[in-house]
């Protein structure tokens, strides 16, 4: 057995390996192009295509949802897979027990493996149960008089943070939607989704779960996420059916600088906004709300 107090595992070996990688990367980077090199052909192609083929003034959008649409499609489902992985790993027995029979299967296994001890980490589960059975309702921190000490329970933060968060949330939410609806030009659902999930997390951090409970519910979020993913599949499949290419534009192009400019780019961006916004929110809140699962204690 190794020394329990040892924080580092073979630091000199790791330092040697990491130093070697750093030296290799540094040597390699001396050969990489500098900031005066001409743009690669693929970048020129995207810049040339953006205005005539898609009527959008933002080539980055043209690349995300046009030229590289198939890659974005794959990346979206990578995100989807990550969210599913978090949801499955973080799943507790309470809300979905008996869904596929884990709880009853685990009871048998638990009885077989260890008939005397209660399942799970005893101390942690006792603490969870104590939290659940705490009948005294948490008093909203907004009702406390100014000048009194900060909230004792870690549900809400101090009055400074609560007010700052309430102001910042409005700005962030508007900026997020504006990013997708307009920005330099319409598009940008990918970063806008991340901003909107940030709004939910900020509200949670400052005001507690009660502030976001009505919106951030598994039933609503999961339905929205699947709807976003289905919309992306449908948008791309319609390109295949109507125009013979999976990523082709099948929407009439509106004039440059209008909210509908970019054709199918805008639809893809909107669906991506829903997919990324809900996906990240599900992943973060599933992680925050993790409880013990049914597995026996080691």
């Amino acid at each position, binding site marked *: 057995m190794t020394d329990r107090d*040892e*924080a*580092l*595992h*073979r630091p000199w*070996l*790791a*330092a040697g*390996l*990491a130093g070697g*990688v*750093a030296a290799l*990367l*540094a040597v390699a*980077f001396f050969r990489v192009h500098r*900031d*005066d*090199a001409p*743009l*690669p052909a693929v*970048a020129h192609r995207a*810049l*040339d295509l953006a*205005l005539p083929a898609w009527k959008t*003034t*933002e*080539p*980055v959008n043209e*690349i*995300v949802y046009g030229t*590289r649409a198939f*890659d974005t499609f794959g*990346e979206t489902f*990578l*995100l989807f897979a*990550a969210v599913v*992985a*978090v949801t499955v*790993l*973080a799943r507790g027995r309470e809300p979905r027990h008996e869904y596929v029979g884990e709880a009853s299967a685990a009871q048998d296994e638990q009885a077989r493996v260890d008939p005397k001890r209660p399942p*799970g*980490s005893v101390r*942690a589960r006792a603490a969870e149960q104590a939290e659940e059975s705490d009948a005294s309702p948490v008093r909203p921190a907004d009702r406390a008089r100014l000048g009194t000490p900060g909230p004792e329970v870690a549900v809400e933060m101090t009055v400074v943070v609560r007010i700052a968060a309430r102001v910042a949330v409005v700005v962030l939410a508007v900026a997020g939607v504006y990013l997708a609806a307009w920005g*330099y*030009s319409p598009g940008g659902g*990918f*970063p806008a989704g*991340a901003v909107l999930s940030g709004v939910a997390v900020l509200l949670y951090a400052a005001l507690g779960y009660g502030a976001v409970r009505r919106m951030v519910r598994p039933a609503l979020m999961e339905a929205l996420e699947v709807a976003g993913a289905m919309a992306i599949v449908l948008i791309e499949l319609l390109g295949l059916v109507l125009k013979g290419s999976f990523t082709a534009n099948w929407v009439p192009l509106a004039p440059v*600088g209008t909210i509908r400019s970019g054709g199918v780019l805008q639809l893809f961006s909107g669906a991506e906004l829903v997919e*990324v916004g809900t*996906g*990240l929110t599900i*992943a*973060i809140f*599933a*992680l925050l709300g*993790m409880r013990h699962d049914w*597995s026996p*204690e*080691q």
Partner: protein
Amino acid sequence: MILGNYLAVAALFSLGLYAVLSRRNLIKIVMGLSLMESSTYLLLVSLAYRRRSTAPVLLNPPKGQTESGLAHGNVADPVLQNFCLTAIVIGVAITAVFLTVAVRAAQHYDSVDADDLRALRG
């Protein structure tokens, strides 16, 4: 000087790698992976940068230029900016997966020390 950015990328990546290889705390290993991930964002935006260039937006051209003229002017590389954008969003989701695994491991083994995760050794 863009070379400074590249060297910072090498340093950040190696620091992250050092954390992953040497630390035994699962949370610190995830932090190391996040550091390695951030170094790739810096690399992508540094590769996209061009000296005295503008953002790749074909809007409001200066006097005497057209919007399509901007496309052939001195602009940053939009393809690499797109890579960076997607990498950030995917990175957040992957970090969430790592952390979920770390929390589950901590629940099962009552420890976040990677050295305690030995169930497969029999």
